[in-house]
């Protein structure tokens, strides 16, 4: 059982589109064995399918490693995007940090 304080937080802001794909992939390349990963996209204003692709890739990777993931998303466009792409059920999405952290805490234990 890993320590809740070894949570990894990945933060990105602005518009996550095809132009920043490599940056997204790099940011999501989480190493080690944290108790969970909080992906803080709270200040992301726009996302497209390349962000979704990277998120899924990241999700599958963490799945294999048995690490829980929470997405913090506030942008209505981003949330709708997940539904349009049909992948909203693939992620634990929260629009408030506390709820996300609670989820990760529960998931880790």
């Amino acid at each position, binding site marked *: 059982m890993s320590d809740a304080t070894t949570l990894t937080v990945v933060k990105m802001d602005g518009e996550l589109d095809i132009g920043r794909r490599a940056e997204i992939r790099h940011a999501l390349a989480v190493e080690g064995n944290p108790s969970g990963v909080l992906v803080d996209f709270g200040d992301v204003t726009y996302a497209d399918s390349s962000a979704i692709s990277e998120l*899924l890739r990241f*999700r*599958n990777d963490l*799945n*294999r490693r048995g690490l829980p993931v929470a997405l913090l998303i506030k942008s209505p466009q981003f949330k709708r995007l997940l539904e349009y792409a*049909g*992948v909203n*059920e*693939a992620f634990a999405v929260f629009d408030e940090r506390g709820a996300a952290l609670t989820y990760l805490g529960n998931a880790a234990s």
Partner: protein
Amino acid sequence: MPLVFLVLVVPILLGGGHLVSRVLRESFANSDARRAARTLNFTLLKDQLDEETGVRGFTSIADPEFLDPYAAARRDFPGKVSQLRGRLSLLAIPGAEALLDDAAGVNGQWLAQVAAPLLADPHTPEARVVQFRGKALIDRFRRDSERLDSALVAREQGDNRRLQSAIDNVSTLVFVAVSFVVLLAAVAAGAQSRLTARLEAARRRAEAEARANLELRTAFETEKRIADTLQDAFAQRPLPVVPTLVFSAAYIPATDETRVGGDWYDAVELGKGRVLFSLGDVEGHGIEAAVNMSRARQALISAALIDADPAAVLRRVNGYLQSAGRMATAVAGYADAVSYEFVYATAGHPPPLLLLPGRRPALLDCGGLPLGVLEDCVYRTRRVQAVPGAVLVLYTDGAVEHSRDVLEGEALLVQAARRALENNVTDLAASIRTEIFGGRQVGDDVAILTIGFAPGETTRMTFASNNAQGTVISGARGVGPVPSSGSLGAAA
């Protein structure tokens, strides 16, 4: 090209030659006249001198024999003058004829003033004076003669010069003309060869393009043929013939062949009164989609034969598509003819439509992630209790995403399904398809599959198959009367 060369050069050469020959002829004619004129001129001078000598001799020695030169010259002189005059007029030397006239006049004067008196009286005491006067005349004659000769010489030189320059001119002209023509020929040949080279290059390019186009078209047509063949093979799956279960299906590939994609439907007997149904949509188009789709549906059937639980079936298909790197939506499950249940699971697929006799149609729960997206994805098996006469309608998104919005599309589908059921239509799927689309072109693949529990005690067997053009061939064999739809369940 050589022809043009000949056509241009020959006239030039001929013309030049003609010009030269004309000038030569002229100059020859001239030179004849000139020579004759000069000879005549000398002769006249000699004649005049002879006349003088004769008279002087006769005056010194009054012997007629000494008068012979005079007589001979006298006989010769006039004829010569007119001959010379003729030549001179031919030659048209300015002033020449005037000189001749003058000389002839002098001769006349001498004859009159000198010869005549002395011949009449050789011993006249005025002989010396007369002879002196005669000398002056002779000098004048001599001068005329010399001047005439000079003029003739000058003319000859002039003529020669003219001839030379004419020849030079013509030579130059011919040279220039020939050079020009040669240059022209060279330029034309060069241009033509350049032009030829350009035409050649253009022709090669056009050929290469045509070849490439042909290759592309051939490749496209080959792919299309393969896709058509695959679609044919995939579409023509006979539906199961199971007592108490009724199936119908319709498949319409997208009107634009390039958009034929990965839609499929299947219904397979699983035994124990269960029939598997599945309907899905693999992303992509063309052969790749068709191949992926075929493998996916095969994986689905295999999985169902092992474990009919729809969630487990979809899980297996998800595994396959994950490794294939392709995404798909699908609904899979089975109809249980013993318990009259529909058991199903969806993966990112539009909601199945349940038609219960006498009730309003209902869109069932759906959800789930599309297949091939998330490893280890968990799907949810749902169960619906149905009754005899109930029909489950499955469809791909092409059936609802054609109109204003999905809600309207769904509404159209629901309406079409209900109407088809009310009308006791034999082939539900075809009827639904027709009502939604009419004769309209289909933008996206559409697949429709209906699974129904036979109403009441009637056994209806329906066989439906579709060819790739989307026309439906179906036949039905009714055994026993078909009850009206109002006999089951409460009216809504």
